């Protein structure tokens, strides 16, 4: 009885994963191995259990890697992939540069004021992501708030072209994912015993060298976690490059969208999705490993 209950308890999350992660994943893999067709759904073959064993055989033999081959033949996909990689790396670095001082600042203020500051970091999450990205259009476009302000102060005479450039995409990603970088870094810094820095200074460090030798290495787990949390979604980001980056910015997410909705080429779109996933599995697994190691060290 007890064993049965335990099995049931473990089975529930597994069933959940099976139903909502593995099943859709297998469907996407299957579509990526199919061929496009003008039909409903827009690909062949379609599995029909009524045809029995022979039907399954025919079905399997109709699957091929054509879509994946296609990805390597058109430079569009490679370019989109490299562009995504570049944008994700640059925006992760920018995010780190902005988030670290922020997290350090919050961790160093008095414990009474910290909740308010943390609240301000999290607060934007309370409004829709889409609305916030639209708001940036209002700020960045040529007659937007930023240009008007800069022209009013006389810093520039002509409006800056920011919207529909990669710069706007960086701004959008850094803004949207900043909390994912700030929070893990803050968590490691906040745990840090203040007497460690005093001990370093007592042993002859200057304040700057104490920062490099103590604060930074101890914040490393938070920094790595934050980088993963920003890099992984940024790689597949669609909304931000679409709304802020204009037509010139080709990222994987956007390519995927146009394959699905404009070209109605579901197999190639699925292949793009699978390749992106395989590429991201490496950092995700590395991230999991790191978390495990951290938990061991903490024990």
């Amino acid at each position, binding site marked *: 009885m007890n064993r049965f209950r335990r099995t049931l308890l473990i089975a529930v999350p597994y069933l959940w994963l099976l139903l909502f992660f593995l099943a859709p994943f297998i469907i996407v893999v299957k579509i990526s191995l199919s061929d496009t067709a003008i039909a409903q759904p827009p690909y062949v073959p379609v599995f029909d259990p009524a045809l029995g064993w022979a039907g399954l055989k025919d079905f399997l033999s109709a699957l091929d890697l054509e879509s994946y081959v296609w990805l390597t033949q058109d430079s569009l996909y490679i370019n989109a992939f490299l562009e995504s990689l570049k944008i994700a790396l640059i925006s992760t670095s920018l995010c780190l540069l902005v988030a670290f001082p922020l997290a350090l600042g919050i961790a160093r203020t008095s414990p009474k004021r910290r909740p308010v500051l943390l609240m301000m970091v999290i607060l934007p999450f309370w409004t829709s992501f889409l609305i916030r990205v639209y708001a940036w259009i209002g700020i960045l476009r040529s007659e937007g708030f930023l240009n008007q302000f800069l022209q009013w102060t006389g810093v520039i005479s002509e409006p800056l072209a920011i919207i529909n450039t990669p710069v706007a995409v960086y701004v959008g990603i850094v803004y949207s994912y900043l909390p994912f970088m700030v929070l893990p870094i803050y968590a490691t810094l906040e745990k840090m*015993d203040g*007497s*460690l820095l*005093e*001990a*370093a*200074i*007592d*042993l*002859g*460090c*200057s304040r700057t*060298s104490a920062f490099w030798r*103590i604060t930074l*290495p*101890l914040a490393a787990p938070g920094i790595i976690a934050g980088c993963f949390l920003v890099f992984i979604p940024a790689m597949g980001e669609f909304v931000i490059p679409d709304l802020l980056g204009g037509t010139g910015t080709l990222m994987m997410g956007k390519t995927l969208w146009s394959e699905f909705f404009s070209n109605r080429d579901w197999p190639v779109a699925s292949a793009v999705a699978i390749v992106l996933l395989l590429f991201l599995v490496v950092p995700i697994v590395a991230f999991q490993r790191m978390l495990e190691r951290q938990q061991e*060290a903490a024990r």
Partner: protein
Amino acid sequence: MNQQAQVSDRQPGPAARPSGGPTKVFAPWTEADAKPLVEFVDVRKVFGDFTAVNGVSLKIYPREFFALLGPSGCGKTTLLRMLAGFETPTSGKILLDGQDISGIPANRRPINMMFQSYALFPHLSVAANIAFGLKRSALPRQEIAGRTEEMLQLVQMTQFAHRKPHQLSGGQRQRVALARALAKNPKLLLLDEPLGALDAKLREQTQFELMNIQEKLGTTFVIVTHDQEEAMTVSSRIGLMSHGSLAQVATPPQIYENPVSRFVADFIGDVNIIEGKSGGVIARDGEEFVEFHRPGDESVFVARASEPVAPQTDCCLAVRPEKIAVTREKPADAANALTGHVHDIAYVGNLSTYHVRLADGSIVKAQEANRRRIANREITWEDEVWLSWTPGAGVVLAR
């Protein structure tokens, strides 16, 4: 450290015996020409509107093991942190070797500190922790390695050199912290409650290790503690603090036998405080004593005075429980005697403490060693008993 090493180390301690000459007691504070290593001159520290340290003047001599003792929040840590350079005095100055160190930042003072939490760097190994301070100096690499090895041996942590702090026990961490603070061979080592996190057994053992290491190296130690037994065990002198100022600075026997105030008498060990008025000064056997009267009691008590007390001042008589004898009959020639009823007997194996209620309702404690089995004890609850003590046993305190 094994017992053998402890014994052999303690005998020829460099602090106790300066080279050549006859054996001399280590007491530089009694010598007029001794130069202090550290001198506090009327140091005050104010946080906002709170005075944490209030006019401390103190001299600490080379090779001393000085204990700062006091209740929680009395300013011990603040005093230590000013010495280390983490806080600046609001007024007054601190001299090291006769030089004002107010302008020298913490990282350039020849002073190292062992933190209460140990503050070991969690991402560095034991050896790297110990070498941390050495690497910040201009020493050649070879020398750093040698010195690190030496320190590992001193605290017997050689086989744990490559472990990380989280893989060590509390006692081992404490030793690494000590080795790290000593590695740069500081003129002065500050220890803020270094044994606070250890259990009683380990604590006692570690106290002796600390004393051995201090004697071996001859470094001046200033230790903060709120455990009076620990302070009595390890230190050459104790500075007892109360509300930001020093209540008394003296050697452990002096502070126990000759407290200067009620606070000191009460803080160090167990004491009976009997209220009353002082009388005249009398001489007995070539020593000076003070007479003492209890209200509503015509008998005269005789006790020492650690400071002169004018006649007819309100004061108290402080007597340690272990100096009071308990008898059924009135002792014939006792200098001080009181009678009462046994209210309670606290038995702790080797000792019994008799709580005796006097006629006015106050309780006086008397402690006796249990030389006989408890069944043979002749005094029991509600018995009428006499308490007596010698003139030298009590101290009259005006403060």
